[in-house]
């Protein structure tokens, strides 16, 4: 059995509604991340801080391996996985903690069994990440850069009662919502540009929604943001259409 890839672990972790971003911290480096590139340079410091707390806990013979840091709008949850690396997740406050916990425990077991490989792109120092992914980054970021991930379902109408065109419209709304939740008003601009291009180059059908996701992804700046959107959008479409088509 092949080893687990860090990016796959991250993709699995951020696939829940309620988890907006995640990263893996190991040996004072961020090994993989879906956080906005504008805060990549802070992640190592945050990882170091959390690692220090876990070390403090051990120093007094305690075995804490999960930490919840409550912020104004989100909760940062970090797990010490197999005493090997930290999995840090930015979560909505109302998230189902048991679901996340069981997923992390499952990851922990899989890593124990199969080992772990770093992502194909080699681990990067925050400064390198910034240079590679974020040439036009806004360095003066604020907490607003971390979106509050909605826990609601994007597709509100019963698809059985909708025409094909209405179904497409519903999915477009869902994709737009994912963008707005992640990027705020900028998401609206990205969405409109991509849909315009999609309608010109493809038939606006359910089968072509994947092409729209590709076009939107192309419009998004930053490798982490691209991947985060792509994972959420494809999962949303795959799950919804797979279940209801």
């Amino acid at each position, binding site marked *: 059995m092949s080893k687990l890839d860090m990016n796959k672990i991250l993709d699995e972790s951020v696939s829940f509604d309620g988890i907006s971003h995640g990263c893996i911290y190991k040996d004072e480096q961020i090994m993989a991340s879906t956080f906005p590139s504008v805060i990549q340079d802070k992640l190592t410091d945050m990882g170091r801080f959390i690692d220090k707390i876990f070390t403090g806990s051990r120093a007094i013979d*305690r075995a*804490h*391996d*999960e930490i919840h840091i*409550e912020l104004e709008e989100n909760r940062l949850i970090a797990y010490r996985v197999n005493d090997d690396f930290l999995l840090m997740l930015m979560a909505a406050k109302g998230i189902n903690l048991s679901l996340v916990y069981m997923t992390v425990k499952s990851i922990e077991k899989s890593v124990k069994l199969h080992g772990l490989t770093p992502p194909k792109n080699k681990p990067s120092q925050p400064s390198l990440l910034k240079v590679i992914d974020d040439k036009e980054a806004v360095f003066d970021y604020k907490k607003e850069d971390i979106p509050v991930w909605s826990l609601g379902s994007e597709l509100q109408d019963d698809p059985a009662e909708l025409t094909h065109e209405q179904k497409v419209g519903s999915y477009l709304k869902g994709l737009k919502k994912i963008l707005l939740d992640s990027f705020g008003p900028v998401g609206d601009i990205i969405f409109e540009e991509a849909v315009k291009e999609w309608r010109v180059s493809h038939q606006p059908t359910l089968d072509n929604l994947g092409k729209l996701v590709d076009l939107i992804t192309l419009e998004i700046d930053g490798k982490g943001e691209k991947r985060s959107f792509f994972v959420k959008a494809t999962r949303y479409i795959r799950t919804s259409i797979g279940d209801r088509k």
Partner: protein
Amino acid sequence: MEDDDIDQIMQIKGIKGVIQTDIEGEDIASTIEDEQLGHFIRFLVGHAPLFEQTSELGPVSSIILTSNKDDNLGVFIGKEHSLGVLFARGCSIKKLYSQIGNYLKKLSIGDT
């Protein structure tokens, strides 16, 4: 917080100890006898503002540590006071918030 409040928190099922500290981390009231644990709680209280500075993600209202081997530990940060709570590992975080929420409000702690 009155001693009565500390006593009432201690009556809640699953709560094993409480420390109330002032802004400088000095104990105002405590039922935690383990000296090292007391130090660790004060360490967490002191680190919350450092995390705020590091992350720039806004105010930290609480830090909660959990384990499936040891008791859980929560630190709730206020402007003038902070509250450290040692609670049984079977007690969920959401349950903890609902159980001690009124006391946190009384101390203007957190965002309950």
